[in-house]
């Protein structure tokens, strides 16, 4: 056992009914290193972290911290042994102050010593370079700062091991840089950091070593500097990455034969989008692009009437129609995959089957339920064709990994055979393999004549799939880019205000 290893896990096994989540996995974290834990959804990353932090009990294997064997029975025990965890969703209280959030639930006394608490918070925040006052309300801080405060809280508990689970997924670039600076600072203090993310560039920017898991098995441990990105991806996916390169953009039909499937004039909604004109041709893939908060999601929601419409003239295939509620949009052949999968997409406790048939069933009507057999046939068809990994069609959707949940929602809309499909962030928080599958699917749909509006915060992805980009800023359309030679700098230029 190497003395510099602060955490050592050997031969970890963990099984759930029907699934072997971890099989004989080894993992070692050195003092003062940033170690990326990589793998697709369902590879076993979260299970490994949960075993590490005492949330799950391991079936077999050994865990040692600084050479001493440990056996955690609860997350509290893990915390006391110096393991701090910061999850993707910030689990702080927004209506308390920064200092309160840092020390909440930690006092050994019945009374809070405000002065002492604030002084200690100030010191800690300063030493970590987090630019907030301890008496500030947490809600007034940006997401990145909140994330950092969550980390500060973990650090103050005197942690030797810090686990960051997707800490950057809701941060912008500038905020990510701040977070990275903090991580480097901690690293120099000797904290071992486990970093889980889907952003490959970030992995290379900050990690020293990379451990790759796939299907619950350890693929290997590598020095970040000696593992090219392409190789990392193929290790994660278990297949050569030629696939990603073969995605070919669909060519929209020539101008002469174009038919506008959907056309809106001065469309607006009560979510605060300024009235905008928008249209999409048959078989076209276009996208709303812009920064978070630019109104790209709100525009998509306005088309589907997901937010209450406040105005606009809509034509489907040249005929005037009224779309006042989601059901109207569905009946016109529009499908909408929402940005917030958990909040707006899945019906968590219902089965995969019910989740798949839901939209089509609602379109068919309240008094016309599908027979059990028919529903089975529909769901099995998509479980197979989209390769949805689920123990059965009866499994509640909440038991599936994020990527597979997303596929279920996709299946739901594909089943309605839409003419026009709106996909808002279909690839967020899911693994590369599924991302590629979804992008391919979008292009395949377009070839079959379905129009698709695709929204993603990864510009590359949009450039790869869309033939026309509508650039948004401050809740209005500021430009439009098309042609087969869209580039990232074009988009940046428009967002920055240069016009087309």
């Amino acid at each position: 056992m190497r003395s510099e290893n602060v955490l050592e896990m050997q031969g970890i096994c963990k099984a759930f009914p029907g699934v072997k989540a971890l099989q004989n996995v080894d993992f070692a974290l050195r003092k003062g290193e940033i170690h990326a834990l990589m793998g697709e959804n369902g590879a076993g990353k979260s299970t490994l972290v949960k075993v590490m932090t005492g949330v799950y009990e391991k079936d077999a294997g050994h865990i040692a911290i600084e050479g001493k064997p440990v056996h955690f029975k609860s997350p509290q025990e893990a915390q006391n042994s110096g393991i701090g965890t910061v999850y993707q969703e910030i689990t702080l209280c927004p209506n308390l102050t920064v200092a309160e959030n840092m020390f909440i639930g930690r006092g050994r006394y019945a009374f809070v010593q405000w002065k002492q608490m604030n002084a200690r918070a100030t010191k800690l925040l300063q030493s970590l370079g987090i630019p907030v006052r301890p008496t500030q309300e947490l809600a007034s801080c940006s997401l990145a700062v909140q994330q950092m405060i969550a980390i500060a809280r973990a650090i103050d508990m005197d942690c030797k091991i810090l686990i960051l689970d997707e800490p950057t997924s809701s941060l912008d670039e500038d905020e990510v840089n701040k977070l990275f600076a903090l991580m480097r600072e901690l690293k120099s203090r000797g904290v071992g950091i486990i970093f889980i993310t889907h952003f490959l560039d970030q992995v290379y920017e900050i990690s020293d070593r990379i451990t790759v898991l796939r299907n619950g098995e350890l693929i290997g441990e590598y020095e970040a500097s000696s593992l090219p990105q392409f190789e990392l991806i193929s290790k994660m996916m278990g297949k050569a990455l030629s696939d990603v390169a073969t995605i070919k953009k669909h060519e929209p039909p020539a101008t002469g034969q174009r038919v506008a499937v959907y056309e809106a004039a001065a469309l607006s909604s009560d979510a605060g989008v300024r009235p905008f004109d928008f249209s999409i041709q048959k078989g076209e893939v276009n996208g709303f692009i812009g920064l978070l908060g630019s109104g790209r999601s709100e525009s998509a929601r306005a088309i589907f009437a997901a937010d209450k419409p406040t105005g606009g003239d809509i034509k489907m295939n040249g005929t005037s129609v009224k779309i006042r509620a989601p059901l109207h949009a569905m009946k016109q052949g529009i499908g909408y995959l929402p940005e917030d999968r958990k909040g707006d997409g899945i019906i968590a406790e219902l089965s995969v089957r019910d989740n798949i048939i839901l939209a089509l069933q609602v379109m068919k009507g309240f008094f016309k339920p599908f027979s059990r057999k028919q529903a089975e046939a529909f769901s099995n068809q998509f479980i197979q064709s989209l390769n949805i990994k689920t123990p059965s069609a009866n499994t509640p959707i909440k038991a599936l990994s994020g990527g597979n949940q997303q596929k279920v929602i996709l299946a739901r809309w594909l089943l309605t055979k839409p003419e026009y499909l709106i996909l808002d962030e279909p690839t967020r928080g899911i693994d590369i393999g599924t991302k590629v599958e979804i992008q391919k699917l979008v292009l395949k749909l377009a070839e079959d004549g379905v129009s698709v509006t695709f929204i993603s915060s990864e510009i590359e992805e949009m450039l790869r799939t869309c033939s026309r980009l509508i650039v948004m800023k401050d809740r209005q359309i500021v430009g439009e880019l098309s042609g087969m030679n869209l580039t990232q700098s074009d988009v940046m230029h428009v967002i920055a205000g240069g016009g087309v």
Partner: protein
Amino acid sequence: MSIAKAKAQGTQLFLPLSVLAILIVINLIKGADYFSMSVINGALYGNIPNILFGASELVILAIGMTLVSASSRGQDISVGVAGAITSAVFVQVLLNSGNITWLTIGLSFLVSCAVGIAIGAFNGSLVAIFKVQPMVATLILFTAGRSIAFMIDGKLSPVLANDLTSQLGGVIPGVPIQTPIILTVLFIAVVALFIKTTNLKLYAESVGINEKAARLNGIDPAKIKFLTYMILGLCSAVAGFIAVTKAGRHDSVNILKFVEMDAILAVAIGGNALSGGTFSIAGSIIGAYTIEVLSRTLLRLEVGTETIKAFKAAFIIVLMIIASPVVRAYAAKALRWVRSRMHEGIVLDTGALEAAAASNPNAPAKKEE
């Protein structure tokens, strides 16, 4: 029905069914003649018919309560007084209709059903449109309802003294089973048919689990909540009808008294979450009968009528603790531990796991079904 679904239902029904089994065993120990029935005036009497007879109203209300809980994530505490009002309407319409025939009884019943649905619509609009908390919304009627029923009565306890209504509340000559039992079975059949031929279950569950997502799939959550409250209103009317024909007079103070809490309890014992979402009506029905069996068991054990409520409460507390997720998690953990001891040395492959799963204690529940 696929195996997985049957298994899931089996787990949900495991608790109420095993409680029923325990209660029956207690009764059998007390006296082996528990199941014996006798024929009096051409109808069956005995412990089992008495339970089915006594639980009629509760079963019907529990069905509606299940739907309301599922869709609106809250409970309607006005079901008892709603039944008091609808049965008062039934009695008044019937007594004022001149002669009492099957036709006038049927019409009066339909009028009372319409009133029940209207009450449901009132509660439903408060919950679905004005987004008032279900318990607060129904508290209004809970408070005012019995006075309204009293005003409808006009005088103290109008009496239904005629053969036809007492046949409805008792036995129709030539039919060996007491009428309320038959009415309850009919009602269950109608509900089952309605659920089978509509998407009520899918819609109500979707709305209860994730209202926003349901809306984005074209469901109107307000409509569904409204509908479930109207159905519960109808259930109240049917329960009120049965209660008043059983009693033979309308006592606005005591009819269906305290039934709302038992109805909620039946839903919970049936393994349904009171916080909405997936539900099993079968569970609630079994839960309702369980409550009735419990009351009668305590009576049979010669617990005094004054103290019976305390014993009932104690029993239910134990039951709820056993069914709580905390205890369940411990039980699952203990089970895994036992299993891992049993399979020590055997390679832990899926086959072994499934074999272990097959031997888990939920299996007996399926046998009982």
